[in-house]
């Protein structure tokens, strides 16, 4: 099992979710984050005091899936989240050793 973690632009969330449900993935967890990267931020000025806002609003999506689905998940997210503009985000994949569904105690693949 893997977790596919993606950083995306906030307004792409619905499209990404639709793409995932389209390939049969029906669970995910979303976190509001701030990202720093190539995409540059903006400056706010309050009565002459300038504050550079370098961290831009992004969403982090975490999807736990069976290892064999990872490719499809990456493709689905990439496809849906892509605007071609700088700042579209990243996808990272890392392994998980266990998964448990709290309600039932089911584990691993059954837990997803």
């Amino acid at each position, binding site marked *: 099992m893997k977790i596919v973690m993606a950083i995306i632009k906030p307004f792409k969330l619905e499209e990404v979710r639709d793409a995932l449900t389209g390939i049969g993935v029906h669970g995910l967890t979303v976190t509001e984050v701030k990202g720093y990267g190539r995409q540059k931020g903006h400056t706010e*000025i*309050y*009565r002459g*005091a300038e504050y550079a806002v370098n961290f831009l609003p992004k969403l982090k999506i975490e999807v736990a899936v069976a290892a064999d689905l990872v490719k499809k998940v990456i493709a689905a997210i990439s496809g849906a989240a892509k605007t071609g503009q700088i700042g579209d985000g990243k996808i990272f994949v890392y392994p998980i050793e266990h998964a448990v569904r709290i309600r039932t105690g089911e584990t691993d693949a059954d837990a997803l």
Partner: protein
Amino acid sequence: MTSRNLRAGLPALIAAMLAAVPAFAQDEPKLDTGDTAWMLTSTVLVLAMTIPGLALFYGGMVRKKNVLATVMQSFAVTCLMSVLWFLVAYSIAFDENPSEGLNAYFGGFGKALFGGVNMESLTGTIPEWVFATFQMTFAIITPALILGAIAERMKFSAVLWFTGLWLIFVYAPICHWVWGGGFLGGAGVLDFAGGTVVHINSGIAALVACLILGPRKGYGTTSMAPHNLTFSLIGASLLWVGWFGFNAGSAAAANALAGVAMANTQVATAAAALTWMFAEWIVIKKPSLLGILSGAIAGLVAITPAAGFVAPSGALVIGIVAGVGCYLASVHIKKALKYDDSLDVFGIHGVGGIIGALLTGAFASSMVNAEAAEGASVATQFYGIIATIIYCAIASAIILFIIKAVIGLRPTAAEEEEGLDIVLHGESVQ
């Protein structure tokens, strides 16, 4: 017209009253319900300027960790000043000192605890109860204004001691000088609704206070961006709305003088707000909400001394000058001089008050106000400004140094870092 004497700070109030006697010989002073209705309303409006107006204007500009502490300062100062005004400060400001020499500087104690005020007492055409409460609301907002300069870094106990002592030793005497029969009113200084008494006074005290306290920890390096300007919008709007009680209420009657004061207030405020906004639009390429709000307050401040003395075209000019002047002071000069007046009380109230006081001398018109003819002169206004600045600066500094020595002015650096809401009040916004 009599009613205007009460506030227009022409000769001394006492003089005015003596002078008035013949006029009233056949014509005993009588309560006017219309004037009273307007002054009851004005009192309500000026109270609303501080709570919730000023509280929100300031609260929206601080960081989220200090918002409750900031609004609490306005609220607690409202309570403390109310009680002190009743106990002693009203008397110092408006009672005649039995010693004629001292009366130039300081009122008597005969009206302490509202002594001598009864169901028949009138001030002009309104019950003295109403006059005393109306003036109370001015005594509330003036010290509350100062606290913008030391926002986010003063101990709550020190705030209470400072504002309490300042009311008694700075505000009440200066109020007496100008409106209560003291030497500035006697010298012909014009101050319709408090440009000198309220705004220059609080602006100077603010500058002194922020210099003595020193800058906020992290000033200039970490972000101190306003956490929610929606609150500041509410606050500035309520200040504007309530300011009609301040300015038109200072006519002490529901008449054409109140009417022209209202029209002037609206024109000057709008002009100053637009001026600040366009100045900023030119300089930093974006018109900001904080900018237009700040400009509006600058206009309100500057028109305050002039509201009942000038015509609307004068008000328009006063607004424009205040918009530019306060913009430069709050944004560019402060930046150059590097002091940390957190919410620009000096830049707006101090500078705006001085601009307004001087231009009152320039634009006062006897077509609007008969007394303007006698009194209006930029030099006299300048005299009033200087006297106020000197006394206010020295007295405020003394009070602050005493408090610093006895209980200290600031929380620890770690506490300031954590935020005053939690540290001082044990509360937080979710």
